[in-house]
């Protein structure tokens, strides 16, 4: 599929590669079907997207499916500012170390996450975190990269796309889940 090549040319994945889903409707239904979703958000979200309010879109989406949001670094304050009550302050390395542990019951102690949604990290860094989960995570846990890139180590990934297109996709996911514009 066009765009389903690693965004960084050399970050070739192994035999197990992400299932590519870029249609907002299908992503929305994956999100909707999650019982215990978790967002892990990084500090390298595109500036333009930030200006166009992607954070509130993410929070809306998370809210619609009752997801936790794990975030650390400078961007935490932006998420905190939304007053979404499931924003968790935790560094990415620490959260993925726990996510792959079958005994970890989540931030609220209520059980394992079944869908882990990644967004906003340096490409290679997300690639590696997803690699860790691909090999060491529970098979029942699915990872989903919502970045505008093909992330082969996720269970499900989008394709490479430009920021405008990406914002459309995210908006559509939001409206699929919440209704409205």
């Amino acid at each position: 599929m066009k765009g389903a090549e690693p965004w960084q040319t050399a970050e070739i994945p192994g035999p197990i590669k992400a299932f590519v889903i870029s249609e907002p409707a299908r992503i929305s239904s994956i999100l909707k079907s999650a019982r215990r979703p978790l967002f892990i958000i990084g500090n390298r979200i595109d500036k333009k997207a930030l200006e166009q309010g992607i954070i509130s879109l993410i929070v809306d989406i998370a809210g619609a499916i009752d997801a936790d949001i794990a975030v650390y670094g400078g961007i935490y304050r932006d998420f905190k500012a939304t007053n979404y009550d499931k924003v968790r302050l935790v560094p990415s390395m620490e959260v993925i170390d726990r996510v792959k542990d079958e005994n970890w019951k989540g931030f609220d102690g209520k059980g394992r996450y079944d869908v882990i949604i990644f967004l906003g990290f340096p490409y290679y860094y997300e690639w590696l975190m997803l690699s860790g989960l691909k090999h060491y995570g529970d098979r029942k846990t699915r990872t989903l990269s919502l970045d505008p890139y093909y992330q082969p180590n996720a269970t499900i990934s989008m394709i490479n796309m430009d920021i405008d297109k990406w914002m459309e996709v995210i908006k559509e996911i939001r409206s699929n889940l919440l209704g409205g514009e």
Partner: protein
Amino acid sequence: MPRKIKIKIDELKSELGVIKNLELNIGRIIEDWEEPEGQYSMPKVYELRDWDFKLLKRYKPMYMPFCDLCCLCTYGKCDLSRDKRGACGIDMSGQQSRIVLLACCIGVATHTSHARTLVEALIDKYGRNAPIDLGGEVYVEAPNTRLICGIKPKTLGDLEDALDYIETELTYMLASTHTGQEGSNLDLESKVFHVGMLDHLALEIADIAQIATLNFPKADPEAPLVEIGMGSIDISKPVILVIGHNVLPSTSIIDYMEENGLYSDVEVCGLCCSAHDITRYSPKKAKIVGPMSWELRFIRTGVPDVIVIDEQCIRTDIALEASRYNMIVISTSEQNIQGFPDMTREHPDVIVEKLVNREIPGAYIHDPDLVGEVAVKVAMKVYPLRKKYKKLPSVEEVIAYATKCRECQECDKACPHSLPIMNAIVAAKNGDLSLLADLYENCVACTRCEKACPVDMPILTMIVKASDRRIKSEKYKIRVGRGAIQDTEIREVGSPIVLGEIPGVVAFVGCPNYAQGGKEVVIMAEEFAKRRYIVVTSGCAAMTLGMYKNNDNKTLYEIYPGVFDAGGIVNVGSCVANSHISGAAIKIASVFAKRKLRGNYKEIADYIHNRVGAVGIAWGAMSQKAASIAAGFWRLGVPVIVGPHGSKYRRMLMGRKENEEDWYVYDARTGEKVYVGPVPEHLFYTAETMEEAMVVAAKLCMRANDTTKGRAVKLTNYIDLHKRFYGTLPDDLPLFVRVEADIPITMKDEIIAFLKEKGWKEKAIPDPTLLEEMVRKK
């Protein structure tokens, strides 16, 4: 392994015949070192393995495989994904640890061959009996060597035994990576630690050999300030650029100029550690261009006339790059010959002529003493021609290049930092070079973008051109590497560090593969210096710290003192000077706390791990050497934080603060097992952002032994940074407050309320150790 000491005997008659003018290596001798020998002199990996396993129980490897495959033998490639195994039986965890071990073996080999080269050459020049004198206040001259080898090196010659030991052990460790060898990922990790320990030994040998003989600053807190930056190079003179890590060819350049009255006729500047060390040798004459990432930037300006390369961290395409600008390259190390003809046995003038006339593509000269004459003569001959050769393009030329762009984005996809190159090129096409200039800060000058471009856009050159004003203003000051820390300094700071009153020692080390530019390192270092941590630095990181000015037009080195004390910014020197950082930690245990040093690794590491609040930040760590240096800190129980690219080292060593059972120590007074909280929480950790790194570093400085006063100081910094970035108290605070007295007074009420809410309970403060044998009772 028997240690050897050498003595000279003029004549000896034995059953073998008459022997004259011999050096005798004596297997064992009662040395005049009053300290009794510990159990672990020149240890094998299995002797320290139980210590490693203690650490690995707390800090479990967390793998992020960089490849799903193994391709090391002809059974492969093997798919190791998930729970599969290779044809040899190895699984993904084993494979990742094996690759880490392999990387560390490459790292220690690099430092060891460097040390061997130095020691051999310096013995040749200064004799085997040249004394190891590192400065009047440095009595424990070689803490790593004493600790690991159980020897106290007095002369250059004594260092050879330690090198022999490293080479033997390295061979064993490398052998463990062979197909069908070590199958346990934890044993592989223990071997990583072993290699790391060896690495610091190699580093120490290399640095003390050169300090002792080459008149480097000797543990001098007031080592001189020298110039750094491309703008500081006098381009009106012939320019010799030295690159690498082995200072000897560079010293021969300085020596030749001095001996021949050419002292001010040629400009000598350097990149990487050779630059550090040539300014330690000659702070008056030599200048520093910058860290590794400045290599192609500087070459692309067209300035250097002659490039003398030695070893390590040199662009492997240097010959190609230099030839574009008709620069002349001389290679000097057997580790990096570059295919050049070996000219070592030719007359210097013959070499000069052949180089100047381009009869040879470059010259390999393995005798450092010959390099100086050739380099200087060639530089003076070719300099007048420099103007004829291609320099930076004009603005118009940059625009003309840009118009060829196909907007395919291959450059963006090739850039390791995902910089927005295409947009910058497109802007340039329209006459706006500012976006190109914006790339300068975060670009590491790797030219992957150029190589990927289908129209061969000279992207880096265009970035450099767009930044030419900035480049001219790159003119800063750095304090040259001071070498070791004085015993007297250790004695003064030992108590406040161990008790926790100096909140920590933060070391900024390693390579310049920064995810977001070098400025972050400067910000972090200044933050910790202001907070009265001891900030130490070395290698490329130390250069980075010198390459930014504050509002007063000063670099950190001009503002903060070079003393090993709260609020100091201490440049110890080149990469090999990292041994003084581990050395300082070891000396706190030995000089300040009077723990036995000799062959006593476990006790000293246990001491450091539980008492010395040190943390390394290798924000741009790139190389295999960086991995082995980090591994040496790990075995001492000192945590290391890397920047985002550090995730590519494939595995972190992560503690789990909520696993209570991981955080027990023995109370050395009673033998009881006591919970002390997750201190330090991690051993190897990737931080995504500098904000994260600062908060985590502050946290990782806490130690089980902190006094209440010390813990309060450390918590103040941790909480303060946390609040600054996140506006809240850290969630895990209850784990770090043992008794009420730990709580920083200024925030007492808030914290007590918080602790109550979290159900905090008071904990004991033991005399902490992980070693059962350290329990005094029983």
